[in-house]
């Protein structure tokens, strides 16, 4: 950290990174076994996007685009909308239909992208 305009989603995705090392994280990776790339825009879809890769084949998370070929599905969200989806405030199908979520790649892969793969942050 250093700048103050860090994406909120990054905080959650960082937690995902550690989560993938837990038993539950491994179970999720095993269950899904797909590679997702997530592009997150601070305000408006397609602008200043930051890419993250959630590799549920290897059970890894990293910042940046997927380098092992083609991700099974690539999602684009705004920062707020990603949080809503990951925290169960918005249904991914709805997000998709409303245009709050863009998807490239396999639709069946995209359908496995559900809020339960993300750990929920606890509150102080």
């Amino acid at each position: 950290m250093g700048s103050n305009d860090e994406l909120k989603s990054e905080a959650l995705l960082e937690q995902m990174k550690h989560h993938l090392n837990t038993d539950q994280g491994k179970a999720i990776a095993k269950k899904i076994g797909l590679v997702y790339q997530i592009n997150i825009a601070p305000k408006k879809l397609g602008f200043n996007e930051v890419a993250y890769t959630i590799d549920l084949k290897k059970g890894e998370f990293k910042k940046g685009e997927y380098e092992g070929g083609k991700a099974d599905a690539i999602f684009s969200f705004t920062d707020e909308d990603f949080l809503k989806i990951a925290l169960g405030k918005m249904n991914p199908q709805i997000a998709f239909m409303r245009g709050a979520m863009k998807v490239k790649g396999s639709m069946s892969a995209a359908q496995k992208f559900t809020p339960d793969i993300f750990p929920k942050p606890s509150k102080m």
Partner: protein
Amino acid sequence: MAMRELVTGGAACAVPGSSSSSNPFGNLANAVLSTASKGQDWKELPSSLPTASEAQFYPEAHGQQLPGPDFDQPYMQPGAQSSDFIRNFNSVGGNALLESAWDDVQGSQLPPPMHGPQLMYDRGAAAQLQPTLDGPPQRVLSSFLHSFVETSRGGIPFRPTQLPVLGLSAGDKQCIRDRSSIMARHFFADKSEDFINGQVNALLCSLDIDSDANSKGPLPARFRELEGYWNESQAIQKPGAHATDGWVREFSQHRVDRGDPNVWAQSFEQQHGAHGWASEFEQEQSQLMSADHMRGGNMASLAAMEQTRMLANTLAQNEDPKFQKSRFLQFVSKMSRGELIIDDNQVKQATSSTAGDWAGEYQQQNNAGSNWANEYVHGEVELSRATQWANEFSSEQEQHGSVDDQWVNQFSKLHVDDWAEEFGNQVGQGILGDNSTDSWANAYDEFLNEQVASKQRLDGSRGVYVFSDMNPYVGHPNPLKEGQDMFHKGLLSEAVLALEAEVLKNPDNAEGWRLLGIAHAENDDDQQAIAAMMRAQEADPTNLEVLLALGVSHTNELEQSAALKYLYGWLRNHPKYGVLARPELSDSLYYADVARTFNEAAQMSPDDADVHIVLGVLYNLSREYDKAIESFRTALKLKPQDYSLWNKLGATQANSVQSADAILAYQQALDLKPNYVRAWANMGISYANQGMYDDSIRYYVRALTMNPKADNGWQYLRISLSCASRNDMLEACDSRNLDILQKEFPL
């Protein structure tokens, strides 16, 4: 009611004494001219009077262009064009067209305040950019009103204009005065009361009408006004002395009663754009090759039904019993169950049996018009004339529809109890028990919840504190004391109410706001906590506890820069550590600098628990969880009885995926404060993050039992229920039925 009717003198809001008619401008013309020529027109009309609803049964008339009286022309033609557009839109299905329609649909989910009037203007008077201030009086009045509407689009101040003498009667003036002030409040919903009054005064001044109307109440008063109009329209049940007038009145009465559902339905569909949606949806689906489970159905009516189901569900969630009984809800629920379908913008009964119901209902409402109703039911209406009528109606209703967008929005904002009361005494049943297993339907329901939730969040994120509706502590002699007692007894939700009463009484009481904020945070509602703490900070900008609480809440909401600002504010305002704060930092805060300063503070006085707590929060921000845990542990040695500190430790451990340790820490917190909702919810989160969904459900339910207003808890519960394959309980979760959930998942 169509807003347009309010403006131009439709039947429902007719002022007794002025003649009302189906045609608003006809009404104006009648009132203004008082000539016999209009009466002649009326007499030529069919003796059995089609109502707005009858137009539904002549779909062939829809969009058909028949010449009306010449002052109707500007309305008739755009109306027909727009239905052409809808037809083309449905048949052509070009990509560009669909996309633009999609944009419309998207846009209409949050229509701008000017939406309604703008559409009305576009359709109604596209050619009349400048008011035509000559010609017959009704023309002058019409174009003058249009120019008023036009200025409202851009929020331009309306200037008084010199008009020729119009010869308006006192009743007409009252009509215009009342309606323009209501209308203006809709147009300028985002403007100040002064601006609205200015606009209305300018209008009234031009028309030489006194503006000292009694209709100038503050915004909420308009619903009472509407109620008044409604009562008036109900009151004029008796046929008038004059044959024509009586006839006209009777007719418009029918229109009110029966016309409403149609207008509603239409505007509803327009707002949500059933056809646009359906086409877009179909297109997306086929693109994605996953259309299998939605193909083959009648997309338009399916989508329309789903839209209605959504509406029915939201409406059903309004717990006001008056509203639950409203006829509108019943109507919508009928549509959602497919008993009524919308086809070509006309409402139709799906089966003949329900048609009977409707006819019966209709007759009950209109004892005076029972003969007419019989005729109507048996279809013994002269077709040619009826067609003309139907046509006139459908074109007119299209204009109404656009304005009704606004109205529907207003309506769906709820708080329309008074108004809803007037809608009758029939109970809308079977809406909640009618859930199909269709996943798309569920998705719509969720969408709806999410919209409601997002609205609340929007209010919250603006930092606006949302008070409870019914507060028994208002009027309590010492609500602060009461609130403090409740808080210490651990009755958080009660404490919230008492403290709300306190800050309503003394809005500058920093302690009241602070404790309220803490109660909300412990009750697991960070948005309200932030809103209350902001008020506390306003009242007392240097209160350290408030600054720390704001830092913590913003950290929880992942709002890093805001959190950093408040935590640094804590340091700067601290009597001991304030000297460490460097003034040059406050402009552009960098985490590393702030952390370094806090470490200096901790070295200065290692026995101050507070500085370790702030440091722990700060390390949470940077996700240096090990350091954060260390800081909290140090603080706990100094303050072992601080339950919120145990929870902070637990949350930090949970976020650094040490969930098992976290649960121990939460348990400590709960031993010290058994009603600590946040700790219960955090327990649920920790179990869920470990994949122990059954356990997590029990803890979520426990937390929600103590504070059902914590939206996060409901969302997490839903996820855990799905993951635990307890889809049978999703409905109880969606309807927030804690009785069922508690029985099913005891802790």
